[in-house]
């Protein structure tokens, strides 16, 4: 049975699975809204540094240190994540048209961007810890790590999901009539991207 015939049988004309992923995404928006508001409430309540955008005095050495946020690397990661949303749209187009080369190529590009982003986050986290910012250190650390950490976890799940799609495509198990599965993964990926579009300015840009 084709997706087309299936879709006609529903009250909205949309496939139930697509509706489900949108519903789930709506719920997840509240999850991140709560984490973001936790960050906004807490980022200024640190008793000691490191701080995000202000210099701070290390109580151990007495030295004044720079604010801990470093824009360049994160901006590159952000750009790649944004582009990856474009790439996954192109991959989906390839899947819907039965163009296996297009599907595999753009999906690979998406995955590379996603993995780079996760790698960038891991690097940033390690770097921050090295500089003295941990979950336990202060309120900025606690709320920063938990917000970006959960976002990173969501990206990782997205990478695993897309990698599974890639594997299926490789094994020729992603024909046009099954492209909805990729569409659902792509929607989730876009969501993860949109959340980052909010987090990036809130955490990194706005002082």
């Amino acid at each position, binding site marked *: *049975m084709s997706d087309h015939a*299936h879709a*006609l*049988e*529903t*009250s*909205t004309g*949309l496939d*139930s699975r697509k*509706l*489900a992923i949108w*519903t*789930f995404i*709506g*719920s*997840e928006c*509240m*999850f991140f809204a*709560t*984490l973001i508001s*936790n960050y906004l*409430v*807490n980022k200024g*309540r*640190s*008793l000691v540094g490191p701080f995000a955008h202000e210099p701070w005095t290390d109580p151990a050495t007495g030295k004044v240190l720079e604010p801990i946020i470093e824009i360049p690397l994160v901006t590159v990661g952000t750009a790649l994540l944004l582009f990856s949303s474009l790439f996954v749209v192109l991959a989906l187009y390839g899947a819907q048209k039965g163009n296996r080369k297009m599907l595999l190529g753009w999906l690979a590009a998406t995955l590379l961007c996603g993995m780079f982003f996760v790698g960038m986050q891991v690097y940033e986290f390690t770097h921050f810890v090295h500089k003295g910012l941990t*979950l*336990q250190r*202060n*309120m900025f650390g*606690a*709320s920063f790590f*938990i917000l970006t950490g959960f976002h990173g976890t969501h990206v990782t799940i997205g990478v695993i999901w897309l990698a599974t799609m890639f594997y299926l495509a490789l094994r020729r198990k992603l024909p046009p009539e099954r492209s909805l599965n990729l569409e659902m993964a792509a929607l989730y990926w876009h969501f993860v991207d949109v959340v980052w579009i909010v987090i990036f300015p809130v955490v990194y840009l706005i002082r």
Partner: protein
Amino acid sequence: MATTALDQRHAPAAAHGEKTGLWSWITTVDHKRIGILYGSTAFFFFLLGGLEALLIRVQLARADNNFIDPDTYNQLFTMHGTTMIFLGIMPLSSMFFNFMIPLLIGARDVAFPRLNAFSYWVFLLGGLFLNASFLFGAAPDTGWYGYANLTSRQFSPGPNVDFWNMGLQILGVASLAAAVNFFVTIVNMRAPGMTMMRMPMFVWMSFITQVLLLLAFPVIAVALILLMFDRFFGTHYFVPAGGGDPLLWQHFFWIFGHPEVYILILPAFGIISEVLPVFSRKPLFGYAAMVFSGVFIAFLGFGVWSHHMFTTGMGPIADTFFSLSTMLIAIPTGVKIFNWMGTMWYGSLQFRTPMYFAVGFIAMFIIGGLSGVMHAPPPADLQQNDTYFIVAHFHYVMFGGSIFGLVAGGYYWWPKMFGRMLDERLGKLHFWLMLIGFNLTFFPMHFVGLNGMPRRTYTYPKELGFEMLNQIETVGSFILGLSFLVFLINIIKTSRLPRNAPADPWNGATLEWTIPSPPQEWNFDKAPSVQGRDPLWELKRLNGGPLPEPPLTSGAGIHLPNPSYWPLISAIGVTSLFVAIMMLPKWGPAGIVVAVALLFFGIYNWLFEKGYSEFRTPSHGGH
């Protein structure tokens, strides 16, 4: 139609038949069976919560009593609240969501039958996990809303709070999965011709409930995660010494908590909106107003949360805002009560058992709603908050409201679910005992609360004068308990009867009464076509009288989803993940790795299950 290999792997519905045996229940994906699983499990937990309440009442019957020591008492009142809300009222509502929504909208099943089964198993495991804490003598003991910083590792060093935290997270997964499922089902699987504004009111109220679940549960999930990090990883979200603020917990909790109380009452609202018209023999008064008031309540429900926090000293601006929004939300609630009464007015009231409970609901909910309005002004609430006056209010809306409504639904839909009619005389005895017992227990609480008795106190000194009213309340609670014994007797007695209830015992208005009692596995032979509200009344009108009893059919050519055990495996995976998180100090990350592996194992097999047919809404001929 051509028989492909895929088709041959789907046994026709007739061959599925109605299987018996434990394995058929473990692997079921049938919404009706899952509904019965929810209902029986929830009823068991409800009785457990009731037992906890009776123990509390025995302890409070005398001043300076030592029937129960303070530590046990604090676990009892915490578990009573947590159980009644998360393991009682919510899954009892789920029983009706599951069994009735597809029938009410003319569908074969829900949108995602395996996800449905998954929700149930996660709920069961979550409830067992939460109660397993008793076995360790460490049941949660910080109240059902677990205020920080009492819940911090410093002031609650034992595992009690962790049981509560992980338990609620597990249950949250169940609720969210179910909410996605029912949201999509209601939006996408209605019978041809059933527009949103022709849906039965129970479906509307359930729909709004799912939206509330989807938006509110993530908030408490985050709050619980933050608490978990404080307790396990040394963060200070709610620890003042590290820069955190216990008040933040209260905000996050109540942003969830207030919508949660609407989650608890809206399904009952929906049930009453089904029962009253049938037993008044006229349509629901003001359908559109009922829909819009429900939507308005849900929307506004996200804007009143700090009325639980008037005593925290937020300042006059915040106090004013939340006080006014709380008063505002009383308006759509009042509208509903008047519309229900408008349904009864000029009707021909048939006082069968469901109608008793429905009218009882209205009477009790009015009281609960009015005491709620009395809390709305902060100057008054400063005296009322955290006293038995509040306990009275919420029991009037949750028991007098939700439970009366759910019981009404029980008596109403029993014949459809089980093919037998519950005994009328025992039903009425149940009602009177419940009404009298309930009021005797909770009405005096208004007085003892305003006269100085705070809540969550394991005892009180004689000189404060609370003893007499407490004794009356205890007597009432045992009468209330007795009423449920009568209900149990009714259930057991009825189960011994032959299964010969008619399809339409009450002269119903909606689609579930067009099919046999209980329905065959596929519900409808053909998708019904709907032209308006109250479709069955319309059909009967066109027919010039009652319809003939629908025959049992073979179900030939009807495809149904195969049973599956992967939802159960995945549910075990989810539960083990939270157990592993709780056991991090002892098991280290290895536990989490194993749990995640099990979860992935379950999910991947579920997604790639061979021989599982994607569920399709039948269009014509049903295949």
